[in-house]
């Protein structure tokens, strides 16, 4: 009593397969930790395949991004029960020295974002999803996506500006 034919299954799996590298990129930027990122991708794939029979067409890629985004949100919720997460200490301040400085800065800047804002920004900027697709992934109206983007960009700017000694002193 299969609900979708073998051909549909093959097409579905092929779409999933093709999305794996992009999912890894998205997860890496979300978590900034290669192992953790691949754990998330693995959980996403397991869930997707388990729910294969529930999939009745539509955009496989958006669906995978949705699962990964939800799993990551659950992970952060579980983490947030511990009090020590995401306190921004002095030694977390931007470090512009050396050629790696820029890459480290953007990584740390992303770490200071609220999860929903980071998710929206990465889906648009890194994954190239449209505002409409991001709205579906996050389950919110497009206007909310746009305000998350705006706040994310403002926060990154504030963080990066912090590397100017003058501004750091004020803080």
């Amino acid at each position: 009593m299969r609900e979708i034919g073998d051909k549909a299954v093959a097409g579905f799996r092929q779409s999933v397969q093709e999305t794996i590298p992009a999912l890894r990129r998205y997860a890496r930027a979300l978590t900034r930790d290669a192992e953790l990122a691949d754990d998330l991708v693995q959980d996403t794939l397991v869930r997707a395949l388990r729910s294969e029979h529930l999939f009745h067409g539509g955009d496989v890629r958006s669906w995978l991004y949705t699962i990964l985004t939800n799993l990551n949100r659950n992970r952060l919720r579980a983490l947030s029960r511990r009090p020590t997460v995401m306190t921004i200490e002095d030694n977390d301040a931007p470090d512009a020295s050396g050629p790696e400085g820029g890459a480290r800065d953007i990584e740390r800047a992303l770490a200071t974002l609220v999860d929903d804002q980071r998710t929206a920004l990465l889906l648009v900027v890194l994954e190239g999803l449209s505002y409409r697709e991001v709205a579906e992934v996050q389950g919110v109206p497009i206007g909310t996506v746009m305000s998350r983007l705006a706040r994310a960009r403002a926060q990154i700017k504030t963080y990066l500006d912090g590397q100017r000694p003058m501004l750091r002193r004020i803080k």
Partner: protein
Amino acid sequence: MVDRDSPVTPDELHAYIDGELPADRHGAVEAWLASHPEDAVQVEQWRTQADAIRSRYGAVVSEPVPKRLELNQIILKQRRPWRAVAAAAVVALMLGGAGGWVARGMALPVPAAPAGVDAFTAEALNAHRLYTVEVRHPVEVTGAERAHLVQWLSKRLDRPLRAPDLEPMGLTLIGGRLLPGPTGGPTAFFMYENPNGERFTIYCMPSQAQDAALHYKAAEKVAAFYWVDRRVAYVVSGPAERKRLWDIAKASYDQLDRTNTAPRSGG
């Protein structure tokens, strides 16, 4: 037709660099940026941020995909559940049973209720979290087809099920899904919604566990009442407000109990 004075909103500036701006506004935005240097600097900064993100993470797509993420590996593991069970058991022991869905399969060697109940309650809460946030596809069969939904899920679980009528509590049945349970068997999942958009779910799974009365389990922002009745385990999940959830769980319990007084075969 470029109107230099046409006001450009901050949203349009974001849309402009994200390729979301309607074509007929490009001219207006470009003219605006030419005459508003502060905005032009800001847009340039946003572009620089985006470039930094892409240059930091873009190369990940060219890395070789680790073996554990190959679809064939994942499919293979699903077909040989004993391996996953063994692995999950080890992980669950290390995590002290707190691992939620990783604990699937733990119920098998333990006849007493607690271990199995924990696993299906955790799974039910995961399903609740995963699907209640879905906007487009929260359910597979909608509440409009209630009779078909209940009949279909009853058939798949091989026992008579019922979607409780929670309208008196202001909850409308959105619909339901068939889900794989913690031990891989079929599980029925019903979703309800109140006028505020809050969602409650009922998860029903065939279980060997002994009958158990209503128990409460709170997670982060969601909580559940679970019970076991005549070889079906039920979990009612919703926002973590004990009193309200209790009322809903109790109403469901009463209705489902009545249904099950007419059991089929040995079930």
